[in-house]
């Protein structure tokens, strides 16, 4: 257990949160009744396959959703529901409290603005009374901490390497003292060595500044490498949630079990065949009845196709959304 886990000081609470996209084919349930907490100073990995809703959920934590989406439930940041914020409050929240970085930093940075201009602008937009010189000073001290040489402040984004661009993106959040970073596939386009160094940077930010990082990724090995906790999503729902030690040592949900068994590893002593999960994720305009995973599940019970399980702790450990660990006899299975 890391220190972050013992304190368990809550930063964000997501309560029964759902997000429906209205599409021509009917409502699409992208995130379905998700409940979880983010603790201060933890790195939590949010994993799942394409289309499982992990990015939609990540963006929703900043209340970024297309206008045709319907958001229900609560997302409490330090006790306040961000779904109730007015525009001004929301903009302030996005700038100062949370920062999001994406896979391709080149599309997030302005190609005709230098690095220092990005940072100074970010400061002055949210703190309009800061003199330019003071803002630049802050940018300077921050950039060193992120492992970028000071002379790089005068560079344009195209002059930086992919790893440095991502560091600038992190810098844009930190310059306003954000305490939550949402990193959506932030290392996916980077080479392994650069990726490894960015993960080291995440660790440092957590340990030294107590920053909370939600790492959204399809690469489960990254989560094992750096995260304190892991959340596994399937078809818009939270399938399993627990410390990385609990979940990697003893995955409970059949989906998590399959997912972990299909991850390639470089270790030569391990199996030479990857597990092959049958089927495909469901169409979320018509999700399956009961547990959304039951059509692909090898351990499905009769009740699985009828009623949805709850996300409940198993043996005092991780939370699992599965009937195998819940009493279903009294639930009227036929």
């Amino acid at each position, binding site marked *: 257990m890391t220190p972050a886990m013992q304190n368990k000081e809550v930063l964000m609470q997501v309560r029964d949160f759902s997000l429906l996209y209205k599409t021509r084919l009917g409502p699409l349930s992208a995130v379905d009744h998700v409940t979880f907490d983010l603790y201060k100073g933890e790195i939590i990995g949010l994993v799942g396959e394409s289309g499982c809703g992990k990015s939609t959920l990540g963006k929703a934590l900043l209340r970024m959703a297309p206008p045709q989406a319907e958001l229900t439930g609560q997302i409490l940041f330090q006790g306040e529901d961000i779904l109730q914020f007015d525009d001004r409050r929301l903009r302030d929240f996005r700038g100062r409290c949370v920062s999001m970085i994406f896979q391709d930093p080149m599309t997030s940075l302005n190609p005709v603005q230098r690095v220092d201009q990005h940072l100074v602008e970010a400061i002055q937009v949210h703190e309009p009374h800061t003199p330019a010189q003071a803002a630049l000073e802050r940018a300077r001290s921050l950039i060193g901490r992120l492992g970028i040489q000071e002379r790089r402040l005068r560079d344009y984004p195209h002059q930086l390497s992919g790893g440095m661009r991502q560091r600038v993106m992190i810098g844009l959040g930190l310059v306003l003292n954000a305490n939550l970073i949402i990193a959506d596939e932030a290392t996916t386009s980077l080479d392994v060595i650069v990726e490894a160094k960015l993960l080291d940077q995440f660790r440092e930010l957590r340990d030294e500044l107590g920053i909370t990082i939600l790492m959204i990724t399809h690469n489960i090995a990254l989560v094992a*490498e750096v995260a304190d906790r892991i959340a596994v999503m399937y078809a818009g729902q939270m399938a399993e949630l627990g410390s990385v030690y609990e979940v990697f040592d003893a995955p409970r949900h059949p989906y998590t079990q399959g997912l972990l068994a*299909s991850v390639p590893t470089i270790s030569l002593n391990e199996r030479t065949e990857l597990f092959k*999960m049958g089927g495909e994720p469901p169409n979320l305009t018509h999700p399956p009845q009961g547990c959304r995973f039951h059509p692909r599940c090898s351990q499905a019970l009769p009740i699985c196709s009828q009623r949805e399980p709850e996300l409940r702790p198993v043996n005092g450990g991780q939370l699992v959304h599965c009937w195998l660990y819940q009493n279903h006899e009294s639930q009227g299975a036929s």
Partner: protein
Amino acid sequence: MNVQPVPQAQPADNLVEVRDVKKWFPVQQGVLDKLLAAGHQDYIHAVDGISFEIRRGEVFGLAGESGSGKSTTGRLVVRMETPTAGSIHFDGADISALEGEELRRLRRRMQIIYQDPMASLNPRMALGEAIGYGLKVHAPELGDAERHQRTIDMLEKVGLSPAQFFYGKFPHQISGGQRQRAVIARALITHPDLILADEPIAMADVSVRALLLDLMNQLKREFNLTYLFITHDLATAKYICDRIGIMYLGKLVEVAELRELYSHPLHPYTQALLAAVPVPNPHQRRTQAMPEGEIPNPIHPPAGCRFHPRCPLAAEPCAVEDPPLRALRPDHTVACHYAERFL
């Protein structure tokens, strides 16, 4: 450890032999640059003198970071690029300078699978038509009925079953994994000897990856294929490659049988690359520090060993002398002045 001479495989064992191949791309210049440069032309040293062979029936992997030249090497082998220098032999014949009709005939024997199946398939062509098209080009003597039958058989072989159903589908109507199966079917329809697979599963989700790797292994046996498998992902390479070469900035730094290379990496760069691969086990977190900096610009690559500015072992000779590939273990060559330290 006994030092062996560079193993020379029997020529007949090698489907592809690459010798001292270079590929330099001229750097684009504006009018003003041209005037100021007064005739001087810079080059991107994408591939800068590499030699290796691909043995018949094996899966040869090429791995490295972006900009290492692995994709350019692949394109050279299938002659999508013409080498600036050096020679490429395919099945005993020198193909380095083939062009026109001869090159076109060679294409039947080497096919390519790319990363993004959506970009590889014509969105307005039904799968059956796209897959059968290779036969139209390379086997025009076949009648429509025969071509249709072969396409149907191939759809079944890659697991797009029932084939009649998939024959008329368009790329947007099927899943990503199915699209990549269609691309594989299209590559195999001309019965090639060599498949260049350039990051063929990098875009697929983990559960689909396992299925595609399985399919590629199975088809390799069935059709007696040889693969040149290009990847940035050493974990994936483990499940398909027999031998693997590690590239860095246009050079091959190490070549060996896969298990040999993973268990005894001799080049400091290979060691860093292997250490950087995240392991899906929180009890085995990486503790090694990563090399300084990032892969440098291939227009003015460092003199001597290209890895020396980032190398923890670098000493004087490294900045001056480019280390050649040396065989330090059986069937294992490495380009480092100090690789003996890791024997």
